[in-house]
């Protein structure tokens, strides 16, 4: 089947090891040492193998040296991680050491092999390998609720099946100065399968915190997330006072410098700086008993800023680090290019161009040509094919009308990452009913709802959600848990489109298991009507980013 790069028939898939063998063979023509799958290479050099024999998983305090460049296998090929700082000693490094109390390090949930996020495949492997003892399964957020019996798989089902961690957020929300915000809506728990929102200890009433469940985001390519290479706030990535979201919301400002920040960190933009994210994660996720030393926080941030992750190898095409590859591919591209470039235009297209892949490359097999052309078509679909974008709060409210005939790149407009340059929170419908994926309620379906469901009732005199009105059912109110605004219910900050093949599942609630399911969500949501070929092309395109 030409171009059918992501053929999902399990029977036709090679096991990961087999594919890695294939891939590495293609690079260096060497047989693979059993058990070792990481490949080291410096920019522009032939990759070589590391001598030690570790698995892809980085344990806390692992002690390995992180080379300047490392690649790890995944279903589509390999993800590459380029550490611009060069070889990094991880022993004693705060990112790699368990600096909290539960044995976790930052690296636990930000794994090099998973594009600095963590995939369900890896989580499952860890469960098998450690019988659920790995610190990633820590009760606090690595289980559906800390009050559940921790040794059971079922108590970790959201993490194991969908890659979701529990995120507990204060309710009512707190302003940055710690004062309570009076929300524009009432929040009611109408379904609580994890028990954590009604728990005697962790429930909303007991703890003053709402539990929602979200995927970790990649800790790499961060200059695109904060909009600048500087982490001290002295450079404002945004030259505006207000966000362009149609809600007259000002950009938040850096706590030290007072300059606007990008508001792209996390699913709900609750942290303004990487530093505060790291500090908070150390307390919340690593259960550090006291705030982490500021110098260590800065070291983690500095380390993250040097990391660039992207798919680097496709098992049909070979290495993306080779000469003559499209500009967007591979982690070096992310290091080389500038952040904060608006890309929904012909001056600076979001993923540059894939023109080289429209024509057969010398020596290509027909299968390779077909794949390259499929990717190029997928990019065209992303960049050019209009459809009616409709009823999306923070997109259709920006002055383009509802609906608006536009392409994917209208929202996914940041060059190199496909994030939204203008504070990316949008209610796409991934968490709000009626569009959110909910299991079919039927005697036939053994899968019962796993996520909580909240009923949001907006106050009469407050601005409502323009497309859902005053009563909204949602699995995750998203940004509204931070702002208390009705129009932010279900608004989730867009993620970067990089290293996707390394970190399934997708969307903040892990509701798309594969890239095709991600494409299918849009197809349903906006009634696009992608053909089978278009769907394949889009999935192939996303798989190489």
């Amino acid at each position: 089947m030409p171009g059918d790069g992501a053929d999902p028939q399990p029977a036709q898939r090679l096991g990961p090891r087999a594919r890695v063998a294939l891939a590495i063979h293609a690079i260096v023509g060497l047989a693979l040492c059993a058990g070792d799958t990481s490949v080291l290479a410096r920019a522009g050099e032939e990759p070589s193998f590391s001598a030690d024999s570790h698995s892809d998983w980085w344990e806390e305090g692992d002690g390995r040296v992180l080379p300047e460049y490392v690649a790890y296998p995944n279903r589509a090929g390999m993800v590459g991680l380029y550490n611009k700082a060069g070889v990094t000693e991880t022993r004693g490094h705060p990112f790699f050491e368990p600096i909290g109390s539960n044995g976790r390090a930052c690296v636990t949930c930000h794994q090099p092999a998973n594009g600095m996020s963590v995939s369900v495949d890896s989580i499952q492997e860890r469960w098998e390998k450690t019988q659920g003892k790995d610190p990633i399964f820590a009760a606090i957020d690595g289980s559906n609720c800390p009050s559940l019996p921790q040794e059971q798989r079922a108590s970790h089902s959201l993490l194991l099946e969908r890659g979701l961690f529990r995120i507990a957020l204060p309710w009512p929300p707190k302003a940055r100065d710690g004062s309570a915000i009076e929300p524009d809506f009432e929040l009611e728990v109408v379904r609580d399968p994890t028990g954590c929102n009604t728990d005697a200890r962790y429930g909303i009433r007991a703890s003053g915190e709402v539990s929602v469940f979200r995927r970790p985001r990649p800790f790499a390519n961060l200059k695109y997330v904060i909009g600048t290479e500087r982490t001290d706030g002295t450079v404002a990535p945004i030259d505006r006072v207000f966000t362009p979201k149609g809600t007259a919301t000002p950009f938040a400002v850096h706590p030290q410098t007072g300059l606007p920040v990008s508001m792209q960190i996390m699913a709900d933009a609750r942290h303004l700086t990487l530093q505060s994210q790291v500090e908070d994660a150390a307390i919340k996720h690593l259960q550090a008993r006291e705030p982490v030393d500021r110098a260590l926080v800065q070291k983690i941030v500095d380390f993250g800023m040097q990391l660039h992750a992207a798919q680097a190898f496709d098992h049909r095409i070979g290495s993306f680090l080779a000469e003559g590859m499209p500009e967007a591919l591979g982690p070096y591209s992310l290091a080389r290019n500038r952040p904060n470039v608006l890309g929904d235009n012909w001056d600076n297209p979001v993923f540059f161009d894939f023109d080289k892949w429209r024509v057969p490359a010398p020596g290509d097999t027909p299968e390779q040509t077909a794949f390259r052309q499929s990717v190029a078509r997928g990019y065209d679909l992303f960049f050019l094919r209009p459809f009616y974008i409709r009823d999306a709060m923070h997109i259709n409210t920006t002055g383009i009308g509802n609906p608006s005939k536009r392409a994917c790149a209208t929202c996914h407009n940041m060059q190199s990452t496909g994030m939204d340059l203008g504070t990316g929170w949008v209610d796409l419908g991934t968490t709000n009913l009626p569009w959110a994926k909910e299991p079919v309620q039927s005697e036939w379906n053994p899968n019962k709802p796993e996520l909580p469901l909240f009923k949001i009732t907006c106050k009469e005199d407050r601005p409502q959600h323009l497309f859902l009105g005053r009563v909204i059912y949602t699995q995750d109110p998203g940004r509204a848990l931070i702002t208390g605004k009705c129009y932010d219910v279900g608004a989730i900050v867009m993620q970067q489109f990089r290293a996707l093949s390394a970190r399934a599942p997708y969307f903040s609630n892990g509701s798309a298991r594969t890239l095709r399911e991600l494409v299918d969500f849009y197809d349903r949501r906006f009634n696009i009507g992608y053909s089978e070929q278009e769907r394949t092309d889009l999935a192939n395109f996303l798989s190489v980013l």
Partner: protein
Amino acid sequence: MKRPVLCAIGMLSSIPAFAAPQAQQLSFVACPIMRDTETVPCWLADYEGQRYFLVIQIDSRAKVHPPMLGHKALVEGVPTGETFCGGEVLENVRISVLPEREPACDVILPATAEHVVRDAPRGPGPRDKMEVLRAKGLRPPAGARAPKPEAPKPPYEAREFTVYYAFDWQLAPRDVDTITQAMQYAKQIAASRVEIKGYRASAKLSNGEYLTEKEFVPRRRAQVLASTLAEIGVDESTIRTSWLDEPLRGTGQQDWLLRKATILIVP
């Protein structure tokens, strides 16, 4: 085909496209209608058997933003006698998307050969290259930037800024520049008082009826504006809010000027 081009361009750039005709302004509430075309859609609305052209889809920089399906809109504008995209063009059109949902507003007309939108400044795909847009006069020449207003010099005077709203709205996304200017002035002169006053108004419709904004609107306009100004750096302790409960009465001419809040910056 000349007219559509002119029309399309006239809508979005600041070039005034039409000489001011002496026609009566129309004000009406209707479901917006979207017409697809081969390029960007155009937006229409029907009133008393006549179809009016409102605006084409452009982008957030457009002077007039399109309305929304799923909502009725209050349309205010002056008929010109010109037609475009199957509707009579309204000049100086203001479109207020009414906040309550109205699912019955759901008409998308299909693209036909009859209605063509050419040279839209922004198509449905990516923006053209800057050089292309400049050649068409759709963007200022490279390097040309509006000079920054000079910082005020003492003795400072009290200055009032007016923020305008769509009908029944508490948020003023189209007027954030005014809010920004108010903030800047207040900071520059280290204002001792920032007085915010919220209003509501009625709009006199062409059928003679009055459409009045909701009671809580003036209070909410003042409150939201106060918290926004504080958020962007105005000293919270200097801010005072008040509001006028009584609606300002519309006349059917430029009633949007009454849907407002004022910010008085006192040195």
